[in-house]
């Protein structure tokens, strides 16, 4: 049959019409709409999360010093949600932003996936064997050349088993330079040591306090164990307790406080002693303290001569009647407590401030009393045999202070530090004068970072050894920060390790083994889990079943408080920085629950909660009082240059009444250069604009504010 044009066209038209009458077009339309539910096979395909068996694993969060109990919901082997653990003594079901977003840290793209070695312009992947043999080889070289003390280690982990393994490693290697990133606890412990003769961390029984006097502590901005603080705050609301916040900025803590006392930054100790003046002058203090305390008369004399309300008012900017009233209210309240440690409490404070706060608590009779303070002896559950042989003898000399690292290294021709280990810390971001530290670290021939994340310090290291993320490992989590009784929590693997990481403890044990000799002999454990179980010994079962151990030590009485230490500190305290034309403003950092300034970067979910008056695209805002803004011609939302003696940065201005005139504030936790593009290159790292300030008494870096100027861009 011949098909002509006409019949072909007719056929085609017939087929088209016939098809149109079938359900096919409808079906295709429907299929198309179903396809729009996932855009399958397209780059923008919407995932369909696989379903599976639901289970719940419990653990302890170690992302901040808070140590909350967590319940992790799992679908098969995937962790899909973190919740607060009901009944856990720290947080009883509550949980903070960071803890909630923890899975983004576990599954996020910023994890280091296998051992990396620095090479020209980046990193190359290497095997664990190669990494450990190269590092141990270089360490043994140093040791052979008698340079054992030139090895240092910085860690945020502190006094738990992993931290102590690192310390032990250094000790047997022959170096005293085991450096913990200092925090306010160190200042408080130092002050307690000087005034009470026993170094222990003061702990505050906030829940039962009737009057909380906070010297800039961000009690609701991440201080101590944040969730515990929120719960304490809710109790204050229920039982009518008073919260007084002494701070130049209307932080969330100040916003929730019953009384907000804006004070000139850096004069907190002066105000505390001014209050002490009124209390002692009016005889409102606990007579037992005066009777049993040492050098109380010298203290009284100091208060009288230097801290009269008039003088204090001039220095602090707090009006005289207000000082009088604060002092009386504090002293007359049934269960008052005073606390210090600015922001989240991750920075040491001036010794004088810490001592003044301890003195205030003592004057109020608050030691070892409900709603007051008690000094807790450091938990002591790790008892390992002293390492034998030659190694043990070599560990002597003075410990380095981390803020001194740049001047030490830059000072001499031969850097005193030849090798640096960094574990669970990101000093190149979190420490004051971060750029100077980065420059110094750059000169250290061997830098090894044990980290789960590609943070700034890892990015600058010669070797990055990926350690298990917090949800992949066993860890004894020592919780002292702001808890009324210290606790050891047990972090345990919630999911199988996702990448080629190892437990930091295992890395240290393996490294010791690779080094051989007495170093290896000091690490007799098979692996970290074995080490932890042996360390906990008969406590392991309780720890494992319950998830925590209470480690309450004996009470330390405050009756014999030695005020001489405080008087000496007051003498040593450098005079406050005067007015300076070149630097007319004071820049202070602030901490917030929505931005994390520690070694853990802010995960995307949390970053999403940051207000657009804090971060807009890549710009961070500096809070400026309207009066200041007018004086320096700064307009809300406009760009400006922020300059301090340590550096200069481009910022934007946020004009707000929530800050004192002449004080400007900027958040911590922004300005990351590492991590990934969800977090990196946003805002400015305020630690780069603040140089370290050494406390003349404790030697700790106690910088908080810095002189600054702000000019329109």
């Amino acid at each position, binding site marked *: 049959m011949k098909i002509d044009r006409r019949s072909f066209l007719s056929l085609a038209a017939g087929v088209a019409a016939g098809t149109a009458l079938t359900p096919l077009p409808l079906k295709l339309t429907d299929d198309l709409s179903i396809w729009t*539910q996932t855009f399958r096979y397209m780059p923008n395909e919407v995932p369909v999360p696989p379903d599976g068996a639901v289970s719940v694993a419990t653990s302890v969060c170690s992302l901040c010093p808070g140590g909350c109990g967590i319940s992790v919901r799992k679908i098969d082997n995937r962790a899909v949600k973190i919740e607060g653990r009901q009944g856990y003594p720290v947080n009883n079901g509550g949980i903070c932003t960071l803890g909630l977003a923890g899975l983004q840290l576990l*599954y996020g793209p910023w994890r280091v996936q296998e051992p990396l070695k620095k090479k020209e312009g980046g990193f190359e992947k290497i095997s664990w064997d190669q990494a450990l043999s190269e590092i141990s080889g270089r360490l043994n070289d140093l040791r052979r050349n008698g340079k054992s003390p030139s090895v240092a280690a910085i860690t945020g982990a502190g006094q738990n088993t992993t931290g102590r393994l690192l310390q032990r490693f250094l000790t047997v290697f022959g170096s005293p330079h085991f450096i913990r990133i200092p925090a306010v606890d160190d200042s408080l412990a130092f002050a307690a040591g000087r005034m009470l003769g026993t170094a222990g961390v003061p702990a505050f029984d906030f829940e039962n306090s009737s009057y909380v006097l906070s010297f800039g502590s961000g009690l609701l901005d991440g201080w101590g164990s944040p*969730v515990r603080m929120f719960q304490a705050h809710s109790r204050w609301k229920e039982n009518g307790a008073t919260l007084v916040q002494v701070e130049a900025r209307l932080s969330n803590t100040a916003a929730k406080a019953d009384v907000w006392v804006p004070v000139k930054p850096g004069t907190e100790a002066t105000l505390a002693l001014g209050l002490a003046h009124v209390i002692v002058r009016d005889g409102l203090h606990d007579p037992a303290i005066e009777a049993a305390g040492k050098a109380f008369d010298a203290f009284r004399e100091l208060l009288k001569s230097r801290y009269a309300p008039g003088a204090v008012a001039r220095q602090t900017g707090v009006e005289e009647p207000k000082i009088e009233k604060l002092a009386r209210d504090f002293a007359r309240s049934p269960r008052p407590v005073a606390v210090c440690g600015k922001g989240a409490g991750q920075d040491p404070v001036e010794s004088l401030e810490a001592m003044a706060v301890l003195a205030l608590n003592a004057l109020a009779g608050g030691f070892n009393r409900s709603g007051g303070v008690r000094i807790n002896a450091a938990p002591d559950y790790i008892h390992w045999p002293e390492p034998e042989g030659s190694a043990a003898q070599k560990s002597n000399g003075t410990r380095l202070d981390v803020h001194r690292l740049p001047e030490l290294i830059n000072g001499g021709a031969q850097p005193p530090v030849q090798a640096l280990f960094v574990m669970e810390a990101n000093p190149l971001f979190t420490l004051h004068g971060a750029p100077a530290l980065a420059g110094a670290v750059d000169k250290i021939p061997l830098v090894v970072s044990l980290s789960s994340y590609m943070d700034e310090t890892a990015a600058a290291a010669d070797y990055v050894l990926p350690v298990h993320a917090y949800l992949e490992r066993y860890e004894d989590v020592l919780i002292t920060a702001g808890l009324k009784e210290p606790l050891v929590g047990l972090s345990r693997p919630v999911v199988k390790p996702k990448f080629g990481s190892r437990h930091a403890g295992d890395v240290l044990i393996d490294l010791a083994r690779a080094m051989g000799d007495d170093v290896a002999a000091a690490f007799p454990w098979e692996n970290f889990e074995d080490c932890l179980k042996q360390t906990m010994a008969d406590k392991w079962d309780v720890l494992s079943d319950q998830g925590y151990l209470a480690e309450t030590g004996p009470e330390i009485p405050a009756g014999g408080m030695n005020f001489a230490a405080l008087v000496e500190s007051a003498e040593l305290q450098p005079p406050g920085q005067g007015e300076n034309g070149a630097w007319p403003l004071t820049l202070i950092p602030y901490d917030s629950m929505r931005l994390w300034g520690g070694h853990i970067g802010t995960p995307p979910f949390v970053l999403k909660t940051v207000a657009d008056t804090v971060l807009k695209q890549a710009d961070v805002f500096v809070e400026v009082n309207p009066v200041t803004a007018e004086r320096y011609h700064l307009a809300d939302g406009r760009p400006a240059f922020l300059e301090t003696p340590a550096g200069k940065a481009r910022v934007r201005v946020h004009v707000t009444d929530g800050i004192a005139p002449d004080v400007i504030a900027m958040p911590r936790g922004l300005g990351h250069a590492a991590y990934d593009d969800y977090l990196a290159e946003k805002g400015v790292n305020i630690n780069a604009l603040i140089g370290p300030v050494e406390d003349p008494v404790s030697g700790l870096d106690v910088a908080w504010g810095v002189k600054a100027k702000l000019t329109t861009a």
Partner: protein
Amino acid sequence: MSNHGKKYGMLIDLDKCTGCGSCMVACMAENNVPFKKDESNKLVSITWMRVYRLTNGKPFPDTEICYLPRPCMQCEGEHGHSPCVSVCPAVATDYDFSTGIVSQIPTRCFGCRYCMAACPYHARYFNWYDPIWPKGMKESLSPHVSPRMRGVVEKCTFCFHRYQQAMEKAYYESREELEENEYQTACTQACPAGAIIFGDLNNPDHTVTRVVGPDDAHGGRPKNPAVFRLLERLGTNPKVYYTSTREWVRRQADNDAARGENAGRH
């Protein structure tokens, strides 16, 4: 009890709320809310639970701040005639009379955004962008809430999937009623301050009902004078209640032209 519907509601204590943002993050993590590299444009940032920052407008040092978490208000309107439900052309959002929850079906929604225009609380969010999870992050997605595709509206559902799961469990255990704590939203559970109370407003034993004292004759208006709702005058009859001891906060909950309140605030 079992033969009359439930009406889930929430009470947020603004005195206890510290503005920490945990409710927001708990919600995101629970409900597979997507995130972008830049979330600083809050007008296109999906936060089912959003914490507003209120200020009393006074100069330093008399300035005060109050944080106000705002989930979907689950408006009842009059007899389920919530502002958004009645306008949706495709029944992609509906008022469930058995729970009082305003549902949202993203796969039904075709993205006309009429419901967003209708909602005075800005509780509805549009997926302007394709939801993209960075490599590996898809592993943390929960199968209990489907991720949404671009071009649809999403909002807080009072974690309705949790209700379903609790009901399933009760069913297997041959129970018809849920215990108060069996069904709680993710934000309620997470709030470290315990500022959120959640429960069935039709159940007189539930804490939220005891504190609020919803007046059913007046669309659930609180009988407790310390408790208030947002935009009470509009008649949206939300089931999210607030309480605050601060007078200026209570005043900012609603417009009051007659008293000249807030007339100049906008």
